[in-house]
C-alpha cells in the first residue's frame, strides 16, 4: 500500500480497557504521593530538560496513569534527576522518585512496556 501513497494511521484514542497500567501501579505502590498529582504543570515549568527538549513530566505521569506507556519508555530517560520538580510541587509529590521508579519499572517489564 505504501507504494500507492496510502498508509493506515494508528488511532489516537486512549482505549482505557485495552491498556495495561502496570507501570503506574508499580510506581503508586512504592511512591503513594504519585496518586495526588493534580496535573498543575509546576514540575514541567521548572524542568531544565523540559526547557530544551519536549520532555514533560506532567504529561508522562498522566500517560502512565492511562497506560499509554510507549511514549514514556524513551522519554523518561531524558530526566537528569536534578529534583527541582520535587521542590516546586504544591501537592508534595516526590516526582524525582517517580522518575526513578518509572525507569525501574520499564526495566522490570520490558516485554509489556508498550
Amino acid at each position, binding site marked *: 500500500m505504501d507504494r500507492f501513497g496510502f498508509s493506515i494511521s494508528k488511532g489516537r484514542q486512549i482505549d*482505557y480497557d485495552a491498556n495495561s497500567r502496570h507501570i503506574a501501579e508499580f510506581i503508586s505502590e512504592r511512591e503513594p504521593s504519585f*496518586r495526588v498529582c*493534580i*496535573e498543575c504543570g509546576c514540575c514541567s515549568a521548572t524542568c531544565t530538560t523540559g526547557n530544551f527538549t519536549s520532555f514533560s513530566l*506532567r504529561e508522562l505521569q498522566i500517560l502512565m496513569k*492511562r497506560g499509554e506507556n510507549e511514549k514514556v519508555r524513551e522519554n523518561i530517560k531524558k530526566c537528569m534527576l536534578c529534583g527541582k520538580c520535587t521542590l516546586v510541587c504544591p501537592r508534595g509529590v516526590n516526582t524525582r522518585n517517580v522518575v526513578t521508579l518509572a525507569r525501574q519499572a520499564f526495566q522490570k517489564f520490558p516485554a509489556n512496556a508498550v
Partner: protein
Amino acid sequence: MNKHVVVIGGGVAGMEAAGQLRKTGFEVSLFEKEEKPGGHLNKWYKLFPDRRPSSEVKEYLDNITSGEGIKIITGKTIEKIVQNKNQFHISDKEGSEYTADAVIVATGFDLFKSARKEEYGYGIYDNVITSADLEEMFRKGSITLVNGRTPETIGIVHCVGSRDEKMGNLYCSKLCCVTAVKQAIEIREHLPSAKVFCFYMDMRMGGAYYEELYREAQEEWGVNFIRGKVSEVSESINNRLVIKSEDTLAGKPLKMLVDMLVLMAGMEMSEEGLKLGDSSGLKRGDNRFFSPADHHFGSNKSNLKGIYYAGTCTMPMNITETISHARAAVMDVIEYLKES
C-alpha cells in the same frame, strides 16, 4: 398581638428561618409542598465534607421547629402572594388564603432533570443514574446494577446541567464537585474493589475542607480523576456503558467501559419558586433564581418590602450557607416589623 410570619418552603432554609423567627417571639406558619418537611435533606444519606449523616441536621431542624409558636402545614403549595397595605395575602394551589405580616420565601432548588442531557442516556440506559439515585442506594446500603450485580467500574460525570449554555444554565452549581468526591469515596467504602473515575471540567473545591477531601479521595481511596467532559454514552453488546471523552491533560480522546455512570445533576430554580415569583411580581435573574435587591448587603431582600428570601431560591448554596442565609433573612424581618 404577636406578629405572624409565613415561611414558604420547608427545606433547610425554611425550617431554620421558622425556628429563628419563633425564638424571636413571632408566630410562624411554615408551608411545605411535600408530606413532610426537610426538603432535599430527606433524600441525602451523608453530607460533605465530613460525611456527617444528614439525619443529624434533620434532627436539629425538627427540634427547632417543633412545639408551640410554629405551625407546620404540609402538602400545600403556595402559588401567590398579594400585598394589601401591611398585610400579605397568601394563597395555595387549592385556593385557600392565609394572611401574614411578613413573608420569607424559601422555595429552594430542583435538581437538574438529567434526561434533558440526552447524550448521557439517563432514562434510556438502565445503569445511568443521578447523584440523588446513588444517595438512595447508600441509604438502602447496597449499590447494585439493575440486574442485581455489583458494579466493578463506576464513572462519575461532573457538571450535568451546569456551565452548559445548551441547557440554559451558564452558572456553576458549585456543590456537585464536592458531592462527586464524597460519593466516590462512599462507593469505595461500600465496594472496596470497585474502580471509580470522575470526569470533570474543573475541580471547584471552594469550601472549607473540600480540597482536603479531594486529596483524601486520591490518596486514600484511589479515586481516578480525568479532566474532560463525557461527550457521549452508548451501550455495549454486553450491557456495559461505553463512554467517550477527551483526556484533555493527556491531549488525546479516551474511550472507557463502565458498569454504572453517575450524573452529578446541578441545581436549578425550583418550579414552585418560578410560579410563585412570577405570579407575585418577584424579580428573577438571568439564571432564573430570585434576584436579591443587592448581592452584597441585601442578599435576603426582594424587590417587595416585607418579602425576604432565604437559601437556594437565590443561588446554589451548601447547608452551612443556607442556614446563615436563613438567619440573616430573620434579621431583615425583625427590622421590617419594627418599622411597620
